[in-house]
């Protein structure tokens, strides 16, 4: 199997090499022109939404126009998939964006076109991006209905711009177009987090997200620069062909011949990925980003934009493979982020924030998946996570919408049993099962792929243990939310964001706290407030998403002869995320690090590997193991058990014996400082503030003082000296006309005398 894999890789890379020389021959076909509809239709939507804003439309028209455009983009993507399948690589070239040349040699020209690079990875990503965007736009049409008018148009304009930018990011055929999309999604994220711009916390969160992303973007930009400096191109087609010699060297075990410069490219690129995908140390913006409207949280900050980092790594996977540093760093960052975010999530009370930390944690999983050479696992987890996390967010959003912004899990209980909330509760349940990795859900399978592979990959077993622990914690905090909010005795307290939505009750429940007994419906006993059960749009979307997130599990089984050759595998492996896998010591990273540290697990076998393939059950001694067993076989059971344990603990602590909403067994558990620290997010924000913000403030104050005293002082001195000099001459300006004339006459006389004396002296008289 490994031989075939190698063979495939070689042929693919050779094909790519040919493509560089002959763009229209070989596997790179001319892509269909209508591929441009995918980014084009959201632009149309953007224009329509803008026109609506200009025209002062006071209806839900912008929302449905957006839904129409996005659905068109989705249908186009599906059609592209039908046409191109999983094996074809095509490029749709629109126009030359930038094209410079200052010589004929290599690296002396710069080309970046507006071209779409259509391969299976692109289609894989765009399928769920456009699909989810369509559904969430439909959801938002109801969710944002309190803001119909200018704000509504603004929301959907930014929404469309986001989908366009995401399409550029994912479909662009060069790193510059990717960067354009990257910045575009960052901008839209900023705009949408700060949607409620009159709310100081939203504005602060938007700024935080923007600045944090700037740090990451700097890394990405430097990475792109270095790519161009080293390879002389930023177009994928040529780039990966040029990287081929390094991959050959890697296969020959000659890692030392790969230049350090080339190995640093992925390190820089990953900084960008960490910023955008909220990994340590740049993750702190994502939980705050929940200040934005919930559909935004669901689409941008859970399902699509934050996976851009994963996409970047998957897209430039060959570059990561040839670096000794890149993948281990990615693995450790991912694993630590996953664990840290999970521990914070366990202690939070705001359900949307819990979901946010869960997103950070799951993104860590995806990075680990890529880093432990399971690009398929990472990509599959992206897909499943996109659906179930969107489901969870939208369910939370429905609760928030219905209970006037109430998100505190201590103040809500039994929501799923209330009238009209059944679908929300059910969707939440399905989402929770997925997130917790309950057996036979989609989340279960995708998480398993990562977990198993991390034990398989040499030198990564510690990562595997961390991820396994995180899986248990995830199951716990997920069901903590479910048990407390969606089942149990009915109870609620409204939040403080009453919308003026339906019946004129709005506005007078501010600050009131009504405690309701179990069984009492709010609309009988809560003067001034009704829970606002979701309407058809929200319910439809939730139901669809819940079903899709369940059905996503089937992708694990379809498309191939066995589970290891399933549909995501095909989609990922036929793209640039191809794994150049030499069994046992697959990449530069594991050639040097893994071999030395993990002797028993990491046997290096650099010859033509012919005995095993990482995805089948036949393992050699070079294969890593889980407590002596084959990870691929046992991981199904291990992770299921871990998930069950997490759910059981949540059940014990948060459901058993809970009579009142706010009282549960968990309240009697006191972990002291640890708990408080977790509640305060391990004081990461405070540490950043102390380590970064405070020194910067001090430095800037010093510079301010320097500027004021030194620079301004010099400038003022330069102004003062002439003024003082002039002051001494001032009295000579009497204002008398004749005074000036007399001065002039005396001056002329003086000059004449001087000339006279000089002339006389020259004549020898004086």
């Amino acid at each position, binding site marked *: 199997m490994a031989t075939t894999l190698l063979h495939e890789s070689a042929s693919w890379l050779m094909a790519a090499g040919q493509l560089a020389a002959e763009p229209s021959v070989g596997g790179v076909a001319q892509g269909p022109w209508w591929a441009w509809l995918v980014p084009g239709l959201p632009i149309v939507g953007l224009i329509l939404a803008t026109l609506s804003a200009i025209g002062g439309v006071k209806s839900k028209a912008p929302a449905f126009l957006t839904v129409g455009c996005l659905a068109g983009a989705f249908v186009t993507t599906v059609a592209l998939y039908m046409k191109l399948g999983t094996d074809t690589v095509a490029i749709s070239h629109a126009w030359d964006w930038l094209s410079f040349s200052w010589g004929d040699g290599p690296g002396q020209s710069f080309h970046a076109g507006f071209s779409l690079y259509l391969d299976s990875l692109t289609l894989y990503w765009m399928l769920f991006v456009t699909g989810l965007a369509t559904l969430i736009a439909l959801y938002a049409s109801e969710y944002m209905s309190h803001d119909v008018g200018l704000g509504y148009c603004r929301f959907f304009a930014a929404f469309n711009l986001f989908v366009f930018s995401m399409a550029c990011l994912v479909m662009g055929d060069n790193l510059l177009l990717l960067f354009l999309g990257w910045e575009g999604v960052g901008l839209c994220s900023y705009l949408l987090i700060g949607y409620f711009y009159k709310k100081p916390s939203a504005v602060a969160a938007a700024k935080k997200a923007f600045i944090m992303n700037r740090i990451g973007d700097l890394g990405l930009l430097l990475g792109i620069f270095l790519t161009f400096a080293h390879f002389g191109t930023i177009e994928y087609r040529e780039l990966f062909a040029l990287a081929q010699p390094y991959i050959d060297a890697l296969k020959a075990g000659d890692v030392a011949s790969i230049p350090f410069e080339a190995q640093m490219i992925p390190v820089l690129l990953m900084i960008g990925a960490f910023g955008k995908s909220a990994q340590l140390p740049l993750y702190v913006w994502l939980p705050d980003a929940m200040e934005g409207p919930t559909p935004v949280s669901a689409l941008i900050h859970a399902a699509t934009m934050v996976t851009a980092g994963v996409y970047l790594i998957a897209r430039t996977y060959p570059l990561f493979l040839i670096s000794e540093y890149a993948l281990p760093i990615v693995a450790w960052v991912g694993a630590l982020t996953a664990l840290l975010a999970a521990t914070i999530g366990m202690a939070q009370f705001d359900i949307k924030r819990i979901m946010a930390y869960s997103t950070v944690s799951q993104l860590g999983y995806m990075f680990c998946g890529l880093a432990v050479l399971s690009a398929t696992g990472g990509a599959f987890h992206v897909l499943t996570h996109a659906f179930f996390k969107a489901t969870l967010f939208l369910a939370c959003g429905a609760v928030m919408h219905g209970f006037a912004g109430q998100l505190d899990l201590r103040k809500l209980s039994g929501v799923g049993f209330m009238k009209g909330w059944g679908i929300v509760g059910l969707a939440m349940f399905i989402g929770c099962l997925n997130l917790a990795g309950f057996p036979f859900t989609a989340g279960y399978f995708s998480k398993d792929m990562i977990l198993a592979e991390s034990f398989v990959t040499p030198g990564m077993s510690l990562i595997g243990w961390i991820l396994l622990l995180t899986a248990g914690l995830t199951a716990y905090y997920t069901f903590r939310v479910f048990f407390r909010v969606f089942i149990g005795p009915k109870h609620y307290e409204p939040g403080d964001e009453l919308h003026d939505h339906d019946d004129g009750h709005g506005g007078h429940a501010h600050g009131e706290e009504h405690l309701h007994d179990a069984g009492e419906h709010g609309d009988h006993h809560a003067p001034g407030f009704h829970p606002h059960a979701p309407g058809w749009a929200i319910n439809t979307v939730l139901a669809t998403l819940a079903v899709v997130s369940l059905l996503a599990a089937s992708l694990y089984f379809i498309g191939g002869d066995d589970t290891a050759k399933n549909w995501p595998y095909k989609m990922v492996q036929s793209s640039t995320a191809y794994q150049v896998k030499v069994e046992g010591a697959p990449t530069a990273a594991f050639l040097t690090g893994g071999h030395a540290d993990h002797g028993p697990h990491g046997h290096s076998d650099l010859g033509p590997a012919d005995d095993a393939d990482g995805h089948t059950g036949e393992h050699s001694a070079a294969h890593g193991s889980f407590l002596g067993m084959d990870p691929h076989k046992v991981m199904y059971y291990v992770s299921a058990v871990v998930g069950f344990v997490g759910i059981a603990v949540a059940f014990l602590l948060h459901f058993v014996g809970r009579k009142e909403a706010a009282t549960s067994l968990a309240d009697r558990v006191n972990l002291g400082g640890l708990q408080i620290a977790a509640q305060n997010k391990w004081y990461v924000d405070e540490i950043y503030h102390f380590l970064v913000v405070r020194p910067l403030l001090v430095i800037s104050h010093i510079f301010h003082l320097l500027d004021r005293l030194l620079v301004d002082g010099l400038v003022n001195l330069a102004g003062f000296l002439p003024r003082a000099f002039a002051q001494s001459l001032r009295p000579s300006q009497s204002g008398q006309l004749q005074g000036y004339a007399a001065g002039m006459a005396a001056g002329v006389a003086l000059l004449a*005398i001087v*000339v006279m004396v000089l002339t006389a002296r020259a004549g020898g*008289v004086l």
Partner: protein
Amino acid sequence: MDTVIHPALLYSLIAIGAVGVVIAMPRRGPNPSIIGALIAAAAGGGVIAALSLSDLGAIPNVHFYIFSAIALGAALRVITHPRPVYAALYFILTILSSAGLYLLLSAEFMAFALIIIYAGAILITYLFVIMLATQAPREDQVEALADYDLTSREPVFATASGFVLLAALTTMLFAGTSSLPQDGASGRVAQTEAKMALLPARVEAALRDAGTMAEGDELVMIEGTGEVDMNLPARTVQVLRAGEGDDAGVVETVPLPEDLKLRNVEALAFNFLNEHPVTIEIAGIILMMAMLGATVLSRKQVQLDEDEKAKQATMLAEAQASEQGPAGAGPVPAGVPQQPTGGDA
């Protein structure tokens, strides 16, 4: 240094002149301006006499003494007379005598131009302004004069600085002229004479008057230029004879009459129009700007507040309406051309 006047003599004369001028300045109380003027005149006369005596072969025309005496005396009166009108009139006297000096310097065109422009135009403007801007006192009513006309301002310092300048100037001038070539202009004469070639009509008339050119004879011109073919060092021109028989078509060289010389006006005209044409343009622009500026500046600016403006505007509108009303309503009289309509233009 070859001094024209001994410095000690020159400087003492100038100092005496300064004292005279100071004494002549207007002031309150006893005003011995006549005495001061006499002292100053004596000093000035002393300098000129010394100049004349220094080189008896180059004594100027006697009219020079008369005109310069009048010019300087009138100039002194301009700055000492307390009444502006008299000062202006004395200035006219200065101009007239200066014009006399110009005549002595054979600049007759400039002399007349000076009288016409200065005495005739500029000084009349001054007189108008003086009349506009002062209340003229009655005869012998010195006290009615404005205070600023009666007293001078720092006369000693001003005169001292002025006469120090005069001492420096005269020293340099006399030293400078003594180093000038005595026949510096002789080369110029030929250069000026060359312009005669541009005046064929005058040359021809002079030749006919002298009898060297008969009826039907023609001056030989330089081909294609309209200039007389003149041999200047020899002062000869060529004449094409129109005589009978053998004489027909013979070209003869004929001397120019001795008295045929370029007149001053002609020389000035050549210089002015031939060599400095841009000067004329610039002068024209300056004059036009000055006219516009004077018009704008001296316009009487009436300060009206908004109410008055509105009132005037309505009055104007009513006046227009009453003018146009009957004319517009009534029939158009015969013979008055109709307003052209759009189509037939």
